[in-house]
Protein backbone atom coordinates (compact mmCIF):
# COMPACT_ATOMS: atom_id res chain seq x y z
CA UNK A 1 0.00 0.00 0.00
CA UNK A 2 1.43 3.39 -0.93
CA UNK A 3 1.88 6.00 1.77
CA UNK A 4 -0.71 8.11 -0.04
CA UNK A 5 -3.38 5.46 0.60
CA UNK A 6 -6.50 6.57 2.46
CA UNK A 7 -6.66 4.18 5.39
CA UNK A 8 -9.68 5.10 7.51
CA UNK A 9 -12.25 7.78 8.26
CA UNK A 10 -10.29 10.23 10.38
CA UNK A 11 -13.43 12.19 11.26
CA UNK A 12 -16.85 13.33 10.17
CA UNK A 13 -17.40 17.08 10.53
CA UNK A 14 -20.65 18.43 11.96
CA UNK A 15 -21.54 22.14 12.05
CA UNK A 16 -23.17 23.22 15.30
CA UNK A 17 -24.37 26.56 16.59
CA UNK A 18 -22.68 26.24 19.97
CA UNK A 19 -19.99 23.76 21.05
CA UNK A 20 -20.88 23.74 24.73
CA UNK A 21 -24.49 23.04 23.94
CA UNK A 22 -23.53 20.32 21.43
CA UNK A 23 -21.51 18.52 24.12
CA UNK A 24 -24.84 17.88 25.86
CA UNK A 25 -25.69 15.38 23.14
CA UNK A 26 -22.46 14.16 21.55
CA UNK A 27 -20.42 13.85 24.75
CA UNK A 28 -23.00 13.41 27.48
CA UNK A 29 -25.66 11.28 25.73
CA UNK A 30 -23.57 9.35 23.16
CA UNK A 31 -20.63 9.11 25.58
CA UNK A 32 -17.94 10.31 23.15
CA UNK A 33 -14.93 11.78 25.01
CA UNK A 34 -13.67 15.21 23.93
CA UNK A 35 -10.13 14.60 22.69
CA UNK A 36 -9.10 18.08 21.56
CA UNK A 37 -10.55 21.58 21.35
CA UNK A 38 -8.99 24.43 19.40
CA UNK A 39 -9.75 27.76 17.83
CA UNK A 40 -8.60 28.00 14.22
CA UNK A 41 -8.77 31.77 13.79
CA UNK A 42 -7.92 31.88 10.07
CA UNK A 43 -10.78 29.47 9.35
CA UNK A 44 -13.14 31.37 11.65
CA UNK A 45 -13.99 28.28 13.64
CA UNK A 46 -13.82 26.74 17.09
CA UNK A 47 -13.66 22.98 16.79
CA UNK A 48 -13.73 19.93 19.02
CA UNK A 49 -12.69 16.38 18.18
CA UNK A 50 -14.60 13.63 20.01
CA UNK A 51 -13.20 10.10 19.84
CA UNK A 52 -15.27 7.24 18.44
CA UNK A 53 -13.32 4.00 17.93
CA UNK A 54 -10.42 4.74 15.59
CA UNK A 55 -12.20 7.85 14.25
CA UNK A 56 -13.57 11.11 15.54
CA UNK A 57 -16.57 13.39 15.29
CA UNK A 58 -15.47 16.97 14.66
CA UNK A 59 -17.90 19.58 15.96
CA UNK A 60 -17.47 22.96 14.27
CA UNK A 61 -18.79 26.21 15.74
CA UNK A 62 -18.44 29.38 13.64
CA UNK A 63 -16.64 32.32 15.24
CA UNK A 64 -18.55 34.75 13.04
CA UNK A 65 -21.44 34.69 10.53
CA UNK A 66 -19.03 35.68 7.73
CA UNK A 67 -16.75 32.65 8.14
CA UNK A 68 -17.18 29.65 5.83
CA UNK A 69 -18.79 27.64 8.62
CA UNK A 70 -20.94 30.66 9.58
CA UNK A 71 -22.28 30.89 6.03
CA UNK A 72 -22.94 27.14 5.95
CA UNK A 73 -24.88 27.43 9.21
CA UNK A 74 -26.95 30.35 7.91
CA UNK A 75 -27.77 28.59 4.65
CA UNK A 76 -28.22 24.96 5.67
CA UNK A 77 -28.51 24.96 9.45
CA UNK A 78 -26.72 22.58 11.79
CA UNK A 79 -25.71 19.23 10.30
CA UNK A 80 -23.19 17.08 8.46
CA UNK A 81 -20.45 19.13 6.82
CA UNK A 82 -17.55 16.99 5.56
CA UNK A 83 -15.77 13.65 5.74
CA UNK A 84 -12.03 13.38 6.38
CA UNK A 85 -9.84 10.44 5.41
CA UNK A 86 -6.56 9.70 7.15
CA UNK A 87 -3.41 9.21 5.11
CA UNK A 88 0.26 8.80 5.97
CA UNK A 89 1.26 11.25 3.25
CA UNK A 90 -1.17 14.08 2.59
CA UNK A 91 1.03 15.72 -0.05
CA UNK A 92 1.21 12.50 -2.09
CA UNK A 93 -2.54 11.88 -1.65
CA UNK A 94 -3.28 15.43 -2.83
CA UNK A 95 -1.05 14.93 -5.90
CA UNK A 96 -2.91 11.70 -6.73
CA UNK A 97 -6.24 13.53 -6.51
CA UNK A 98 -4.90 16.31 -8.72
CA UNK A 99 -3.63 13.77 -11.26
CA UNK A 100 -7.09 12.19 -11.36
CA UNK A 101 -8.59 15.55 -12.27
CA UNK A 102 -10.25 16.26 -8.92
CA UNK A 103 -11.06 19.92 -8.39
CA UNK A 104 -9.20 21.11 -5.31
CA UNK A 105 -9.96 23.67 -2.63
CA UNK A 106 -6.41 23.61 -1.23
CA UNK A 107 -3.66 23.58 -3.83
CA UNK A 108 -1.21 22.38 -1.18
CA UNK A 109 -1.49 20.87 2.31
CA UNK A 110 -1.76 23.19 5.31
CA UNK A 111 -1.90 22.79 9.10
CA UNK A 112 -5.36 22.07 10.51
CA UNK A 113 -6.95 20.68 13.65
CA UNK A 114 -6.64 17.06 12.50
CA UNK A 115 -3.02 17.35 11.34
CA UNK A 116 -1.68 18.48 7.99
CA UNK A 117 -4.77 18.69 5.85
CA UNK A 118 -6.31 19.66 2.53
CA UNK A 119 -9.83 19.90 1.17
CA UNK A 120 -11.15 18.68 -2.19
CA UNK A 121 -14.01 20.44 -3.92
CA UNK A 122 -17.41 18.72 -3.61
CA UNK A 123 -18.09 19.35 -7.31
CA UNK A 124 -15.79 16.39 -8.09
CA UNK A 125 -17.14 14.11 -5.37
CA UNK A 126 -20.93 13.95 -5.72
CA UNK A 127 -21.56 16.86 -3.41
CA UNK A 128 -19.46 15.44 -0.57
CA UNK A 129 -16.88 17.82 0.89
CA UNK A 130 -13.77 15.63 1.39
CA UNK A 131 -10.75 16.40 3.55
CA UNK A 132 -7.46 14.49 3.73
CA UNK A 133 -5.50 14.55 7.00
CA UNK A 134 -2.04 13.36 7.87
CA UNK A 135 -2.25 13.30 11.67
CA UNK A 136 0.51 14.97 13.66
CA UNK A 137 2.94 12.24 14.79
CA UNK A 138 1.99 12.43 18.47
CA UNK A 139 -1.73 12.22 17.73
CA UNK A 140 -1.90 9.30 15.29
CA UNK A 141 -4.44 6.62 16.05
CA UNK A 142 -3.50 3.00 15.60
Amino acid at each position, binding site marked *: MSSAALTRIHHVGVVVRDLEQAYGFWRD*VLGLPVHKVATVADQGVRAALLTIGGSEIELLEPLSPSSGIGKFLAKRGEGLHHICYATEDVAAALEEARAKGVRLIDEKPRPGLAGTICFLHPASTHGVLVEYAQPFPDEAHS
Partner: protein
Amino acid sequence: MKTERIDHVTVVSPDAARAAATFSRLFGLASAPAAGSPDATASAAVTIGGARIEFRTPAASTPLEEALQKGGEGMVALTLEVADLDQAAQTLQRAGIRFDPQTMGGSRALLIDPRAAHGVRLALMARS
Protein backbone atom coordinates in the same frame (compact mmCIF):
# COMPACT_ATOMS: atom_id res chain seq x y z
CA MET B 1 -23.90 4.88 26.39
CA LYS B 2 -20.97 3.01 24.87
CA THR B 3 -20.65 4.22 21.27
CA GLU B 4 -17.99 2.14 19.57
CA ARG B 5 -17.35 3.25 16.02
CA ILE B 6 -18.63 4.86 12.83
CA ASP B 7 -20.46 2.12 10.93
CA HIS B 8 -21.29 4.13 7.83
CA VAL B 9 -21.90 7.53 6.31
CA THR B 10 -24.84 7.78 3.90
CA VAL B 11 -24.62 9.81 0.69
CA VAL B 12 -27.75 10.52 -1.34
CA SER B 13 -27.27 10.54 -5.10
CA PRO B 14 -29.47 10.32 -8.21
CA ASP B 15 -27.14 7.49 -9.31
CA ALA B 16 -25.82 5.49 -6.33
CA ALA B 17 -23.78 3.05 -8.45
CA ARG B 18 -22.03 5.84 -10.32
CA ALA B 19 -21.25 7.75 -7.10
CA ALA B 20 -19.78 4.60 -5.50
CA ALA B 21 -17.68 3.99 -8.62
CA THR B 22 -16.36 7.57 -8.41
CA PHE B 23 -15.34 7.07 -4.78
CA SER B 24 -13.66 3.76 -5.64
CA ARG B 25 -11.71 5.33 -8.48
CA LEU B 26 -10.71 8.60 -6.81
CA PHE B 27 -9.96 7.27 -3.35
CA GLY B 28 -8.85 3.68 -4.04
CA LEU B 29 -11.67 2.25 -1.90
CA ALA B 30 -12.98 -1.29 -2.39
CA SER B 31 -16.67 -1.87 -2.99
CA ALA B 32 -18.64 -3.44 -0.14
CA PRO B 33 -22.12 -4.88 0.36
CA ALA B 34 -24.66 -2.10 0.91
CA ALA B 35 -27.18 -2.42 3.72
CA GLY B 36 -29.81 -0.78 1.55
CA SER B 37 -32.89 0.95 2.81
CA PRO B 38 -36.65 0.86 2.12
CA ASP B 39 -36.49 4.48 0.96
CA ALA B 40 -33.86 3.75 -1.73
CA THR B 41 -34.33 2.22 -5.18
CA ALA B 42 -30.61 1.49 -5.48
CA SER B 43 -27.71 1.25 -3.03
CA ALA B 44 -23.96 0.77 -3.34
CA ALA B 45 -21.11 1.05 -0.86
CA VAL B 46 -17.36 1.34 -0.50
CA THR B 47 -15.32 0.41 2.54
CA ILE B 48 -12.57 2.29 4.36
CA GLY B 49 -10.86 1.11 7.54
CA GLY B 50 -13.77 -1.07 8.62
CA ALA B 51 -16.38 1.66 8.02
CA ARG B 52 -18.49 2.11 4.90
CA ILE B 53 -19.68 4.96 2.76
CA GLU B 54 -23.08 4.00 1.48
CA PHE B 55 -24.71 5.64 -1.55
CA ARG B 56 -28.47 5.61 -2.00
CA THR B 57 -30.76 6.60 -4.84
CA PRO B 58 -34.01 7.70 -3.23
CA ALA B 59 -37.43 6.23 -3.93
CA ALA B 60 -40.18 8.70 -4.80
CA SER B 61 -41.91 10.59 -1.98
CA THR B 62 -39.48 9.56 0.76
CA PRO B 63 -37.54 11.70 3.26
CA LEU B 64 -34.42 10.66 1.34
CA GLU B 65 -35.82 12.13 -1.88
CA GLU B 66 -36.74 15.27 0.00
CA ALA B 67 -33.15 15.49 1.26
CA LEU B 68 -31.84 15.19 -2.30
CA GLN B 69 -34.23 17.83 -3.62
CA LYS B 70 -33.60 20.23 -0.76
CA GLY B 71 -29.87 19.83 -0.20
CA GLY B 72 -28.65 18.27 -3.45
CA GLU B 73 -26.33 15.30 -3.78
CA GLY B 74 -24.19 14.79 -0.68
CA MET B 75 -23.90 13.39 2.83
CA VAL B 76 -27.23 12.94 4.53
CA ALA B 77 -26.85 10.55 7.44
CA LEU B 78 -24.44 9.00 9.91
CA THR B 79 -24.75 5.57 11.51
CA LEU B 80 -22.83 4.69 14.66
CA GLU B 81 -22.41 1.30 16.27
CA VAL B 82 -23.19 1.00 19.98
CA ALA B 83 -22.32 -1.88 22.29
CA ASP B 84 -25.87 -2.38 23.57
CA LEU B 85 -28.89 -1.06 21.69
CA ASP B 86 -31.36 -1.55 24.56
CA GLN B 87 -29.11 0.38 26.91
CA ALA B 88 -28.75 3.09 24.23
CA ALA B 89 -32.55 3.33 23.99
CA GLN B 90 -32.80 3.72 27.77
CA THR B 91 -30.16 6.45 27.76
CA LEU B 92 -32.02 8.34 25.01
CA GLN B 93 -35.30 8.01 26.89
CA ARG B 94 -33.75 9.31 30.10
CA ALA B 95 -32.35 12.29 28.18
CA GLY B 96 -35.78 13.00 26.70
CA ILE B 97 -34.58 12.39 23.13
CA ARG B 98 -37.10 11.04 20.63
CA PHE B 99 -36.16 8.13 18.39
CA ASP B 100 -37.76 5.54 16.10
CA PRO B 101 -36.79 1.87 16.27
CA GLN B 102 -36.13 0.55 12.75
CA THR B 103 -34.51 -2.34 10.95
CA MET B 104 -31.42 -1.50 8.92
CA GLY B 105 -29.85 -4.17 6.71
CA GLY B 106 -31.30 -6.87 8.95
CA SER B 107 -30.08 -5.23 12.17
CA ARG B 108 -32.10 -3.29 14.70
CA ALA B 109 -31.41 0.42 14.71
CA LEU B 110 -32.59 3.57 16.44
CA LEU B 111 -33.18 6.64 14.30
CA ILE B 112 -32.66 9.71 16.45
CA ASP B 113 -34.68 12.88 16.03
CA PRO B 114 -32.32 15.12 13.99
CA ARG B 115 -33.32 18.11 16.12
CA ALA B 116 -31.64 16.41 19.09
CA ALA B 117 -28.58 15.45 17.04
CA HIS B 118 -27.77 18.96 15.80
CA GLY B 119 -29.31 18.51 12.38
CA VAL B 120 -27.67 15.13 11.75
CA ARG B 121 -29.87 12.23 10.64
CA LEU B 122 -28.22 9.88 13.10
CA ALA B 123 -28.84 6.17 13.53
CA LEU B 124 -27.49 3.89 16.24
CA MET B 125 -27.12 0.19 15.56
CA ALA B 126 -25.57 -2.82 17.25
CA ARG B 127 -23.60 -5.47 15.43
CA SER B 128 -25.94 -8.36 14.72
